[in-house]
Every structure is written in C-alpha cells, then in structure tokens.
C-alpha cells in the first residue's frame, strides 16, 4: 500500500512538471495538441493525488502504524472519525490536502473556464502546474506522509485540541479558501502572459474567487467557534499569527471582490486588481508557510521542520515573478477612464480598498516583526493585542461605516441634495441608537458605542436599499411586493448577495463589540458548597465527578447556576486527561441564552487536590451573533454565487462568439 501511494505521488509530480514544461512550450510556440495534453496532465494529476490520498486515509482508518505519519498522529484508542481527520492534523498530511485541493481546483477551473480564451488557458495551465509542482516536490522529496517504518505497538495519538468535531470541517474549508485563491492568480498571470488584459480572466474566475473567499471566511468563523468551545480560554480570536495568516488573504480577496466591480463597470483599476490577486495569493502561501515551517509558536502550527526555507524561496520566486510580469505589462493595463468624483460609489470602493489593504498590511507587519527582530537581534519582539486592536479600531470602524455609505451613493458622482435625501433615515436611526445606548449606560466603552452606532447605520442603509429597490421595481408595474423583491435580487445577485454579506459583517461587529467591550470576568477558588456571582448569575460549586470516556478520563466540576431564585441548570466545566497523548485539555461549559444572544462561559482553570476548583466565569453579551453571522454570510455568498441566466446569456453573446471565431 505505501508503495502505491508513493507511486501515485511521484506520478502526480511528474504530470505537474509536464504541465509546466509542456504547457509553457505549447503556450509560447502556439502548439494546440501539446497545450491540450498539458491541460489533461492537470486532470490526471488530480486522479493520481486522489489515489495517494485514499492510501493515506486507508492507513489512518486501519491504524497502520507502519506509516510513520499514522503512528505520529493517531493511536489505537482514537475514534475512527478523529483518525480520519488526522489526515490534516499533521504537516505532511495537510500538505497532501493542499495538493489534492489544488489539483481538484486546477482540473475543474481549466475544464470549465472556456470563456477565458484558449490562449489564456494555455498559460494558466503551466501557472497552476508550477504551484502544484512545488507542493508535489515537497511531498515526494522532503515531507512524505507515506514514509514507512517498523510499526510500533501504538501511536502517539492526536493533539487533544484537534479531537473536536470542528476539525472535520474547519481545516478543509480553510484549505478550500487558501488554495482557491490560486485560481484567480493563475488566470491573472495567464492573461498577462498571453497579453490579454481584457475582462475575460475576471469573468472566468468570478465564481472561483467568490467561492474561495466564502470558504476562507466560513473556515475562519468555524475556527473561531472551535477556539471558543475547545481551547478553553474564553475567547474566539487571539490575534495568533496563524489566525492572522488566514485573515490577511481574506482581507486582500475582499478588497479585490470590491475593486473588480470598478473594473467591470468603469474599466478602471486594472493594475490594482492584478496586484490584489497577487497579494491575496502570496498571503495565502505565506499563511501556509507560517503554519508549516514551525517558525512560530502557535496552537495551530506544526513542529519545527525543514520545509520553511523551501516555502520562503517559493514565495520569493512567485512574488518576484508576478511583480515583474505586472511591470512588463503595465502599458497594456492602462485605464482609459478616470475617477469622476471623490463622492461616488467607485470612490467609496476605493476608500474601502485602501482600508482593507492597510489593515492586511499592518497585520502582516505584526506577524513579521517578531520574526525579523529575532533574525536581526536574536530576541523576538512581541506584538500583542493592543497593537492589533488599535489598527482594528482605526481601520475597521471606518470600514464598517463605509459599508453603510457605499450603497447610498450613486455611481460616477453624487450631489449634496441627493446625498441628504438618501442619508436621512440611516443617519437618524444611527443617532437615535447612539443616544439610546448612551442613556442605557453603554458609554463605558467608547469603541463599543461607536461600533453599535455605525452598525445601526449600516443595517438601516441595507434595509433602505432593499426597500427602495423593491419599490422602484414594483413601480415598473406588473408585480406585487414579493415579486418585485425577488426580481430585484434575481436581477443583481452579486449586489444584493453582497448586501446580505454586509449584514453578516454587521452582526459580527455587534457580537465582537458586545462580547469584548462589555464582557464581565470573575475568578474565584471554590470549595464544595461555595458560590460566586457573575453578571447577576450565582454559581454554586457542588464537587467533582470523574468518568472514563474512550481514550481519556473526564473530570468535571459540578456547578449549579441560579439567577435570583430561579435554578438555571447544572454545568460541568473540567479537564480531560488523554492517556496516549499524555496531555490534559480544558473542557469548558457554556450556557447559551438565545433570548439575549449572550453566553455564560465557565472554565475550571485548576482542579485542586484538596477538592477545590479555581473557577473562571465570563458573561459574554451578544457573542452568539458571531455564529449567527456565519449563517447569514453563507446565505449572502450563495445568493452572490448563484448563476444568473440573463448574465450568462449576455456573456455568452459577448465571448462565445469569439471562441467560435478564434
């Protein structure tokens, strides 16, 4: 079996090398059959990688410890589900997942993207092949998940933090996002190499980019929920370098999704859009480098390894190559049109882009600075939460406000009178909300009040956009309110799907502000019968219970929760002691209040030998809006992704004629 997997990986590597060499020659010399053959090599590489992945999955399922990777990441007692998710629980397996997803994306993208034009696809194939070759090279020569050894009696087990149902979906979704950003990058490079700087590459990759961005967004939110319920520190985002590594490409991709609309509508920002695609892809590679190289200490990162220099070299080559290409093609990327007014929809998109990129780059600096300082001075400087919070507030709050302003401003230019009319209701709603919040005592956090006030402004502008749009469509006659509403959304799915995504971001902002700016934290050592109070809840510690659960022993503190004289239930924060892994994990207990959206979050910080517990209790208002935001985000992304028959016909008329004539 390991030989089969290794042979499949070598086959995949050779096919990808062929896609690069053969594909480049075919594109350069204009050889049709060789170009098609190189394209087929990408499809075949996907098949070969699937075989390698099946071999590893089978070894994980059978606990075949003759595979070194299986022995290092599973144990006999590890449940089957977690044994399978150990596929991406370690470095070599996650590299194989990268390659698998990349080959899948590559095959699907080149087979379905007819509109990009053959001459562009011919260059897209070697670009995708180049990225694939790098990962296949690592898997074949540097970090094989299929390396074998003399089988030990038992494996080392899986990190307890990774023994969580979220592990089944969080990493694969992140990978679908990270790797998916390769597609727009490859098409942008393909278009530049083929000297085709029209919109075809954008049209061909529109859905791929949106899907990758959505996967990355949902993956991060699932990661935040995993951290919240599993890591046991009471938060969901810690500005950990690896968390930041996923956030940075997402911010760059968000900027691209907005600025590309300006190129489509006005023919502007061609250079900027290509640069954003390069930035998003390089940041996704950098994120993978951070996780895989072991260069940083993080719960997400794997142990020190030899692949760091390989990654760094590859990132440098890709970045230098892409920037050189953009520079060489600058004459082809010049826009004929210019911004007409600084008060227009496209101008708000531009401001949004500047803020998003500034936020991404300041986060990047926060991640890179400790590494650079360690390399130069030998001591790693610490960039902590206040740094990130400062920039989140400085750039994030204006971004939030712009989400409300943008939809209210017309394309090209807007007069003061029109602005006054469209801003009236959202502004009034925001002012009233701000006043109510201050009267209700929310002024203890200035940032919190600003975030809530801006959120109300954005929500009001979104509601107004739907209401005015529906009304305008209804005025055209022939349909009722329902018909007008659905026709409005169906005729411009990207715009209205985007507004729903904006609503999700607002929910996220409200949840973050509520659960961080207004949270209450209490800590106390409790002996059985002792109690403590947090945000009006009385917590009474009753003692411990202990039981054996599969591969671990669970120790739980029994905490009865009361509000006034009402008994709200028994909660069980505690610890799990994992035998094979020889590790102890925190197991939190959470009381969700669906009516208020808040949580009572209990952590048994220390289980003491004298029968007492060091209990930490956090009251986190509105935190559940974060998770609700995830569902709204998915809904908005699906609407934006859903095919639009009218648009498809228009593009077919525009481009497929060209394919026939070509």
């Amino acid at each position, binding site marked *: *079996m390991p*030989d*089969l997997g290794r*042979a*499949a990986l070598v*086959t995949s590597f050779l*096919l990808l090398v*062929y896609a690069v060499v053969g594909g480049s020659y*075919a594109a350069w010399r*204009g*050889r*049709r*059959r*060789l170009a*098609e*053959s190189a394209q*087929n*090599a990408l*499809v*075949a590489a996907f*098949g*070969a990688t699937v*075989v390698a992945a099946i071999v590893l999955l089978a070894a994980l399922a059978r606990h075949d410890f003759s595979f070194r990777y299986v022995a290092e990441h599973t144990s006999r007692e590890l449940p089957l589900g977690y044994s399978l998710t150990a596929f991406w629980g370690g470095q070599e397996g996650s590299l194989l997942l990268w390659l698998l997803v990349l080959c899948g994306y590559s095959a699907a993208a080149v087979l379905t993207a007819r509109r990009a*034009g*053959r*001459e562009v696809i*011919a260059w897209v194939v070697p670009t995708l092949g180049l990225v694939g070759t790098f990962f296949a090279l690592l898997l074949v020569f540097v970090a094989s998940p299929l390396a074998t050894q003399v089988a030990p009696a038992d494996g080392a087990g899986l990190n307890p933090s990774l023994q969580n149902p979220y592990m089944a979906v969080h990493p694969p979704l992140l990978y679908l996002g990270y790797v998916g950003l390769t597609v727009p990058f490859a098409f942008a490079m393909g278009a530049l190499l*083929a000297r*085709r700087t*029209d*919109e*075809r590459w954008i049209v061909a990759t529109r859905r791929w980019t949106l899907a990758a961005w959505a996967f990355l967004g949902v993956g991060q939110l699932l990661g935040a929920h995993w951290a919240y319920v599993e890591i046991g520190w009471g938060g969901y985002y810690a500005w950990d370098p690896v968390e930041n590594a996923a956030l940075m490409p997402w911010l760059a991709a968000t900027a691209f999704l907005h600025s590309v609309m300006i190129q*489509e*509508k*006005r*023919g502007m920002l061609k250079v900027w859009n290509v640069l954003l695609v390069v930035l998003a892809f390089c940041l996704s590679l950098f994120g993978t480098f951070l996780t895989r190289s072991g260069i940083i200490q993080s719960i997400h990162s794997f142990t020190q390894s030899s692949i760091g220099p390989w990654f760094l070299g590859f990132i440098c080559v890709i970045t230098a190559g892409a920037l050189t290409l953009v520079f060489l093609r600058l004459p082809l990327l010049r826009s004929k049109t210019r911004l007409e007014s600084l008060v227009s929809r496209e101008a708000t998109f531009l401001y949004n882009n500047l803020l998003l990129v500034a936020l991404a780059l300041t986060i990047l600096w926060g991640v890179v600075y400790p590494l650079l300082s360690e390399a130069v001075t030998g001591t790693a400087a610490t960039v902590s939460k206040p740094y990130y919070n400062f920039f989140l507030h400085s750039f994030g709050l204006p971004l939030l406000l712009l989400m409300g302003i943008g939809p*209210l*401003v*017309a*394309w*090209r*230019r*807007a*007069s003061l*009178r*029109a602005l006054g*009319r*469209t801003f009236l209701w959202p502004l009034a709603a925001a002012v009233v909300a701000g006043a109510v919040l201050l009267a209700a005592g929310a002024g203890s956090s200035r940032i919190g009040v600003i975030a809530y006030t801006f959120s109300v402004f954005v929500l009001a502008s979104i509601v107004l*956009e739907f209401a*005015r*749009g529906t*009304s*305008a469509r209804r*005025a055209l006659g022939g349909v009722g309110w329902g018909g007008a509403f659905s026709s409005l959304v169906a005729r411009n799915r990207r715009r209205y799907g985007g507004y729903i995504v904006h609503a999700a971001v607002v929910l996220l902002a409200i949840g973050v502000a509520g659960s961080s700016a207004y949270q209450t934290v209490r800590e106390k050592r409790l002996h059985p019968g002792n109690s403590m109070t947090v945000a009006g809840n009385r917590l009474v510690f009753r003692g411990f219970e202990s039981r054996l659960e599969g591969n671990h022993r669970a120790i739980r503190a029994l905490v009865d929760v009361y509000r006034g004289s009402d008994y709200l239930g028994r909660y069980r924060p505690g610890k799990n002691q994992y035998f094979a892994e020889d590790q102890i994990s925190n197991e939190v207990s959470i009381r969700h209040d669906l009516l208020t959206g808040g949580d009572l979050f209990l952590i048994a910080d220390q289980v003491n030998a004298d029968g007492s517990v060091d209990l930490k209790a956090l009251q986190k208002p509105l935190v559940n809006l974060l998770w609700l935001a995830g569902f709204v985000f998915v809904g908005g992304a699906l609407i934006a992704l859903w095919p639009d028959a009218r648009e498809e016909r*228009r593009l077919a008329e*525009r*481009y497929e004629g*060209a394919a026939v*004539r*070509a």
Partner: protein
Amino acid sequence: MSAALVGALVALSCVVVVAVPFLRDPDAQDDRLLRPGEAEQRRLALAEERDRALAALQELEFDHRTGKVSDDDYREVVGVLRRRAAEALRAVG
C-alpha cells in the same frame, strides 16, 4: 503485488489521458493554438465597452428611481451616457 499492479494501472491511465490529444488527432493538419486576431480582439474590446455603457445607463436609471441621483444630475448625465451607449452599439455593429 496487487498494489504494484494498481500503481502501474494508475500511471498507465495517466499517460493515456495525457496522450489523448495526440492519439485522437495523430496527423493534425493544423496544430496551431489559435489566437484571436487584431480584428477579433478589437471586437471583444468594443463588446465590453458596449456592455459597460449599457450597464452604466441602467445603473443611472435605477439610481434615479431609488433617489440616489437627483433630477438635475440625472438630466446632466443621461444624455452623455446615452450617446456613449449608442456609439458603442454602432461600433460593435
């Protein structure tokens, strides 16, 4: 043994998939990767310009109906956009 056989089959299948374009058309009369000529590239650019102009006109109408564009602004801009759309339509032919 069976694993080696499966491995060989996988490799062979991949080679066949890669060779398909040459197997299907061994004596190709024309093996050129066709690139659109100057005229076709110009037509595409004009078609994109036409769609952009029509979309701009639609946006303006919609923004006017939803109150984002005042009557004065609408009157000032609509003529320019209509002329541009008409020119783009004429250019595409």
